[in-house]
Structures are given as structure tokens and as C-alpha cells.
């Protein structure tokens, strides 16, 4: 296959989210947006201007945010509950568990500015625990799209899916990777580049870094497979097992703690189904220092060149096992 080439232009995935939300909202009056004083940061200004009564702002009250969302769904509406991912998941986790996931409320939880997006604001505002917190909950798909195209496709899918969803979006600009017209399928990884030396797996804002790392490896004659794995739960078991068997090593990277996130979900499959050398890149279990999102991601070894170096070291471990 031809390797994916990242677009030169960077996109804020929130724009794709609200564009689809407004397009769907025009045809479906049941769609409402719910927020916690986050109209601006969720980019809901356009939605509010078109349908002021359908923008339900509970104020700075995240427990009510999620509970009210569940009640709106019970009343026959289709709520998109939007808030900064750090507060939406951390402050309201029990509401997400009891009112949304366990009650099977048809609510779409939109975690905005996830990961290190609020880099300089410090660890209170970093949302690098949300994969871990949400993916342990039954009945709650967890999805982190990699670009504006996948974001649009995932929002479209979420609106048509009958059940709760946690969609994790960033505000940090990313290049487009997936082809126009891409259709989102829950629990299905996308092959962005094929290779047999190692598999690089990421989602969200890290996928394009993996694509660039694979290009660096290719310059050295190393062909890496690259998978975009937006769905953290349910994890794509078949793609992980195939990656392990076909390439013999897996390197994951995520804008999340190395504890409990995408890499952990993949490792759970690898140890059970096809043990191979593996490494998980992410925020290494610390409260991060001050810096922009891009700075911090580089700082934690997720610059493309650093990813390529880690991949080479991991590939070396394949041969040392035999």
C-alpha cells in the first residue's frame, strides 16, 4: 500500500466536531448540546446562535452536567455533553458510571482539550487519566480520533449509535491523515502504512507522529506497520494479534499516562494472545512539568525521531529473544 502522507495544513478537531454537530442538528431537532460554561472552549458558539434553546448550560457544575445529560436522554433528546476532558471525566466519573454507562443512557460525552492540550496550565488541567478511567466501564465505547476527518466521521457515527459514547478530542492542531469520505467503524483500527519490522500503534494527536516516525525508519530501510487505533474500548483484538504475529514487536504511543491507557489495553491483548516485545510511550506516570502540549509530547519521547529510535531498540529485542 501507499504510505499515508500527513497534510501540510493543521486542523483543530473541535471545528470538525461542531461542523458535523450543526449539520446533524439542522435535520434532527432532538440533538442538544450540554455544557458547563464551556461554550467557547467547546466551540459551541455557532450552535448556540442557531438554536439558543437547544444549548443547555448548567454552569460550572460537572456532576449536574452529566446527570442532566442522562435526564435529557431519558426525555427523548440526543444530548452531546461537552466539557474539558479533565473535568468531564474526573469530576463526574461516578455520574458517567451510574447515570450514563450503567443506565445505558444515549448520551455522547465529548471530552474537549484532552491530553496535554492545556500544557502550560499544569497537571490539574491535563487529561491524561481519562482513557484509564473510562475504559474500565462496561457499555461505554472510548474513542480518540486522529484528525479532523476521523473526528467528523466519529461524530456522525456517535449520533447514529444507540448508546453512550466517550469521544476524546484535542484542541491541538493535527494534519489530516485519513482519506476524505472515511467512515468510522467502532473497534476497527486503520492501517496507515504496512511493514513487517515492527507495528507502531497510536491514536488522537499522536498518530501523525507515528506516521512521521515510520517515514524516518523507512529511510533506514526499516519498514514499520502503522495502525491508527481510535477506539480504546472495544480494542481491536484482531488487529493487535495480527500486528504481533506479522511484525513481532509493538510500540504504542499516546497522549495519556503510560498506566491504563491505549498501550495497556493493547498489552492486555498481547500477553494473552500473542506475546511479543512491546513498549508503551506516553506520560510516564508523573505530573508533567510546565510546557506546551507539543513540548511535553516531545519531552516524553514522542517526537518522530525519538519514536524511531525507540522502535529500533525494540526491534533489537526481537532478535535477542531467539
Amino acid at each position, binding site marked *: 500500500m501507499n504510505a499515508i502522507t500527513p497534510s501540510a495544513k493543521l486542523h483543530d478537531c473541535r471545528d470538525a466536531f461542531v461542523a458535523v454537530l450543526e449539520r446533524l442538528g439542522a435535520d434532527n431537532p432532538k440533538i442538544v448540546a450540554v455544557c458547563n460554561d464551556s461554550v467557547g472552549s467547546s466551540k459551541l458558539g455557532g450552535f448556540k446562535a442557531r438554536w439558543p434553546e437547544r444549548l443547555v448550560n448548567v454552569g460550572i457544575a460537572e456532576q449536574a452536567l452529566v446527570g442532566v445529560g442522562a*435526564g435529557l436522554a431519558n426525555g427523548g433528546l440526543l444530548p452531546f455533553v461537552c466539557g474539558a476532558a479533565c473535568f468531564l471525566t474526573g469530576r463526574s466519573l461516578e455520574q458517567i458510571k451510574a447515570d450514563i454507562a450503567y443506565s445505558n443512557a444515549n448520551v455522547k460525552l465529548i471530552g474537549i482539550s484532552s491530553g496535554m492540550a492545556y500544557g502550560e496550565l499544569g497537571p490539574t488541567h491535563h487529561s491524561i487519566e481519562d482513557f484509564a478511567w473510562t475504559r474500565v466501564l462496561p457499555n461505554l465505547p472510548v474513542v480518540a480520533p486522529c484528525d479532523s476527518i476521523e473526528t467528523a466521521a466519529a461524530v456522525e457515527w456517535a449520533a447514529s449509535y444507540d448508546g453512550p459514547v466517550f469521544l476524546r478530542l484535542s484542541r491541538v492542531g493535527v494534519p489530516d491523515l485519513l482519506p476524505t469520505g472515511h467512515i468510522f467503524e467502532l473497534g476497527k483500527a486503520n492501517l496507515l502504512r504496512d511493514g513487517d519490522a515492527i507495528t507502531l500503534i497510536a491514536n488522537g494527536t499522536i498518530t501523525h507522529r507515528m506516521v512521521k516516525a515510520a517515514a524516518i525508519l523507512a529511510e533506514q530501510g526499516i519498514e514499520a506497520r502503522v495502525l491508527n487505533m481510535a477506539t480504546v474500548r472495544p480494542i481491536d483484538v484482531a488487529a493487535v494479534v495480527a500486528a504481533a504475529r506479522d511484525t513481532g514487536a509493538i510500540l504504542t504511543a499516546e497522549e495519556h499516562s503510560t498506566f491504563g491507557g491505549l498501550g495497556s489495553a493493547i498489552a492486555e491483548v498481547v500477553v494473552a494472545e500473542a506475546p511479543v516485545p512491546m513498549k508503551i510511550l506516553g506520560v510516564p506516570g508523573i505530573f508533567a512539568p510546565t510546557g506546551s502540549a507539543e513540548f511535553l509530547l516531545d519531552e516524553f519521547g514522542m517526537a518522530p525521531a525519538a519514536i524511531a529510535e525507540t522502535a529500533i531498540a525494540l526491534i533489537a529485542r526481537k532478535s535477542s529473544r531467539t
Partner: protein
Amino acid sequence: MYQCIFIHDEGFMQPNDLDRIAQQIRLRDLQAVFEAGAGHIGGEMSAIDILAALYFRVLRIWPDQPKHPDRDRFVLSKGHVALALYVTLAKRGFIPEEEVATFLKPHSRLNGHPNCNKVPGVETNTGPLGHGLPVAVGMAKAAKLTGAAYRTYVLTGDGEMQEGSNWEAIASAAQFGLDNLTLVIDHNRFQQGASLKDTNNLAPFPAKLEAFGWDVTEINGNAMDEIVPALEKRGSRPHCIVAHTNKGHGISFMQDKVDWHHKVPSAEQYQIAVAELSEAL
């Protein structure tokens, strides 16, 4: 076309009839707690008159159409008294009456806190306290947005009002102008470990709710002739009923005793309680 059958068509039940139904629910609840060896009997006895009034007079519901879009919503936020709700739902025809005997048994759909995906008539899953009122605010807001005529009722415990999430929701309900929402606080004055007074005393409630922009009615929550008009009251603001009740109401030795939050009666106590409740029938 399906047939809508609701009690309103058969004439409104009067307080005397509702009292009798409440006593029958109490008796069945007591029996189920005794047989299961668990339950939250004190708070069940305090709340049962309110449940009987709701399900046998006030709520516009269709037991054979539990998801009917026009149904009134009731949220049992004090989910630990699920058994009282199960007995009421069974008596009202949502679930078979004999199913109450499965309470807490392996794989029964009647566990210690109500599950809306298993038990018809349950609207949302509760158990952790402070969850029902925010969800009820969403239900009432949805009716405002869609023009639906249903009303939303939510029952909380008084100790439960210590949860901050309730006050987030109380503020939102006033802000949204939810005159279609009724909160009933089962004010039995005791929480699990001690009295409210000795724990975190939010009482008296009325001035606090009024300060948030709610209408408040104080009633004897174990007197049907006060419960019914309060539940049927309509105004222009969200409505809170502070229902002064007795923990363990109807069973003399349980009344106002914190121990009976979740104690199970001995065989001897059970016989006394059955005799007292039967006499009231």
C-alpha cells in the same frame, strides 16, 4: 392502537384507599426484608406513603407501556430503598407480584438498588446518593424543550441532601424555570450512622430551597391527606416538598431508631411488626 389504562380513568383514589395500599406495601416490604435477611427497612417505611400516593394516584403511567413517552417520570434517588419501589411496582402491575420473593437472590433483577435496564418502571439507575435530582432536572428540562406534558418527581433522603451534586441541580432547576419538577425530601431525620442533627444538619430545609428560587411545601409525609395535595400542587417554580416522616413508620419499635436504617428484624420482632401493620389494615 394500544389501550391506555390508568387509574385516573377509574376515578381518583382517595386518601383512605391510599392508606390501605400503603399498609399493604409496608407488610410485603417487611416480609421481603425478613425473608431476604437484608434491606433498608427504616427508610422504606418512612417513604412508602409517598410512593403509594405517587403510583396509585398522582403519576400518569401505563404499567403495560413502561417506556410510554408521555409517562410521568419518577426517580427514586434514595436507591437503597429499592425494595419499597419493587413492592410498589409489583402492586401497580409493572412486575409480577410473586417476583418480590426473588429480592437479592442470585441473578434476580431485583438487587439492592434499582436497575432501569432490567426492571420496568425504573427510570435511571441510582444507588450512589446525589444522582437522582440532577437526572430529574434533565428529564424536566427535556419536557420543556420538547413541549411534552409529563411531570418529573424525585424522592431523596434528607441525609442525601448533604451531597453537593443536589445543590448543583437545585440551582439549575431554578435557572431553567422547571415548574414541572417536584422534589420530595423524605425528612426522617436519620441517616445511616446517626441523626442529621448530629452529623451535618442541613435542616431546616425550606429557607434554603426558597433562597434558590424554589417553592416549598412542608407536610407530614406519613399523612395521606397532606401528601396528595402537596404532590398535586402546581406553581410557577420548581417545587420541593419537605416531607416530615418517621424512620420505621408504622412499626412501633422501629420508629425513629437509627439502628433500623438497615437492621433485620428477629423472628419475634417480625411477628410483632406483622401484627401491628395488619391491625392498621
